[in-house]
């Protein structure tokens, strides 16, 4: 892959969105033949750090006829009507980082995105390829790590690492050079997303459980366009469930809410304190190596989840 090299960076998110738009007119059967796996892989390769989910929401919006975006940024398909209200909802966001400062030597420092502190999450940055979502597109970079040769006599373990120790190397030598690439304080930073297939039907990538769960709900909602249930894809779940709360307050009260997510990422308190969500049932997709850069899902299990959600959507009268 080529990166910037002094040339304008390639806005990958734009291209992904464009590809999604190009295929959004296909019937569900065509989407299915292209593969639920393809949709999962595409969503797993996208970025939606808490508070910065707009491009992901754009893609969901384009793929879900009848859906609208609310003022919080959630994507919701609400058939309206009276009677028993049921919500099926999946969160879009993922933990990440933003640029905290541009150093005079060209390195960037980071600030963790707000929300739950996840043990070991920052350590994943060390010696990792990352993407910086700048004003000019996605820039490849790396997070500095000590050279093993230079640690001789000083131990063979890297020791504790937090985002305060993260120095992002874009190849820039000055702050002005980094700025000329479109980097600013608050530019979003994530681990580089390279969804990785292995085994018979396994897919690994950061936050794949949540992405696969949302893909299953999206496919199910497309398959049952006439469902009476409200379908939502919510933002800022990691930040006090703000998106979910907005849906509850705007489209609720609900008699029942089905909260769809990867098994690793479900907050134990989801909706527990919000009576407008009604009875909350968590539907979780099993995940291997949760919360790691190789969070893994089985495509067979994703398909089973989709089929289960189709039945639930059909069952709402």
């Amino acid at each position, binding site marked *: 892959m080529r990166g910037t090299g002094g040339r304008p960076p390639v806005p990958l998110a734009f291209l992904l969105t464009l590809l999604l738009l190009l295929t959004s007119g296909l019937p569900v059967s065509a989407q299915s033949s292209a593969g639920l796996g393809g949709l999962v892989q595409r969503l797993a390769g996208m970025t939606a750090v808490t508070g910065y989910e707009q491009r992901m929401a754009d893609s969901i919006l384009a793929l879900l006829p009848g859906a609208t975006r609310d003022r919080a940024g959630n994507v919701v398909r609400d058939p309206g009507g009276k009677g028993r209200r049921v919500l099926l909802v999946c969160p879009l966001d993922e933990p990440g980082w933003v640029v905290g400062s541009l150093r005079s030597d060209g390195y960037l420092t980071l600030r963790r995105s707000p929300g739950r502190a996840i043990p070991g999450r920052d*350590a994943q940055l060390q010696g990792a390829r990352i993407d910086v979502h700048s004003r000019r597109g996605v820039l490849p970079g*790396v997070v500095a790590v000590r050279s093993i*040769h*230079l640690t001789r006599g000083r131990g063979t373990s890297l020791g504790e690492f937090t985002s305060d120790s993260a*120095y992002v190397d874009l190849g820039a030598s000055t702050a002005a050079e980094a700025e000329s690439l479109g980097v600013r304080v608050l530019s979003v930073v994530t681990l580089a997303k*390279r969804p990785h297939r292995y085994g018979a039907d396994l897919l690994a990538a950061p936050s794949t459980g949540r992405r696969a769960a949302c893909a299953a709900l999206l496919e199910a909602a497309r398959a049952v366009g006439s469902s009476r249930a409200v379908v939502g894809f919510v933002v800022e779940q990691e930040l006090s469930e703000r998106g979910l709360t907005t849906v509850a307050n705007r489209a609720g009260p609900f008699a029942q809410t089905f909260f769809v997510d990867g098994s690793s990422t479900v907050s134990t308190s989801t909706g527990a304190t919000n009576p407008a969500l009604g009875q909350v049932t968590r539907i979780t997709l099993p995940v291997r190596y949760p919360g790691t850069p190789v969070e893994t899902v089985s495509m067979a299990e994703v398909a089973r989840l989709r089929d289960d959600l189709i039945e639930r959507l059909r069952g709402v009268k």
Partner: protein
Amino acid sequence: MTARWLALLLLWWPSVPAAQEPSSLREAEALLETLVETYGPSGMEAPVRDAVKRALPEWAKPQTDSAGNLWLTVGQGEPTVVFVAHLDEVGFVVRGIAENGSLELEALGGIFPELWEARPALVHTGSETIPGVFQPRDSTGTLRADVGSSSRAGTEALGIRTGDTVTMPKEYVRLAGYRATGRSFDDRVGSAAQILALRQLDPRRLKHTVIFLWSTREEIGLEGARAAADSLRFLPVRVHAIDTFVSADSPLEPQAFAVAPLGHGPVARALDNSAVTPPAYLDSLVTLARRQGVPLQVGTTNGGNDGSVFGAYGVPDVPIGWPLRYSHSPVEVIDLRDLVSLAQLVKAAAEAW
């Protein structure tokens, strides 16, 4: 409709000012990208050796010895000078297959296990590459790989055996300016520098014999170079290891030594853990670089180099490197200009010293 969109997309795609870069830099980058994206953990260097062979000029007729080293002898007559860059990269070897199908791994070379766990993995069986993941570790225990099988028989059915090697997917990525990142720049950059020098060199104009070596198993104890040294014995008058200068050019490193900034040219690796360049030879190298207009840094770093094993036969070792950040990590970083300058210096040392 789709074709029209694609046409619009191509029109919209940013122009590529890379064409404005010097041809020497573009040639160096293309070669390096090929070598970096070829896998060759210690003991399984054949794909890299083949890539080097394909990249050599047409007139070159290299030979492979029983240790797997690639030899190219150029020129004739005394004295004999040796250049050596290594083909291998760090990785793992499969030491066992557990009942649950996971692979028990042992490191090939110096690595931090933290940088490999919970990352994608590739198992190299010799005939195919099988994807998996390095399992996250609960503590500082042994690293294992999961290939998606739940039994030893299932893993063996994939063709995986004890002794196979394991790496992680790698990709050459251009960063801002002249910087690039990837894994195994150590020592694909050295291998590339020797090839680039040979492409520029006229073998008929050489005044003496020059042997270019691409060695095996450097990362696990300079084994290939040792076999070559034992073969050549007292013949060479000097040896140049063309290998990494591990640089402290990073905010994480102590600045006591090894401070060689990227982009400031190759580095005379005058003292490391395996060899000391005789001062007179160092002075000659500095003079040569100055005469040729090649920027040269002089420094000391850690690690060993292939040239050092020629010391058993009294052969002076004059290693030349280039500054590298984050050595043996998945995200090593270089400056491409240093590769171009290094190739110029290798050519000059072969022709004019």
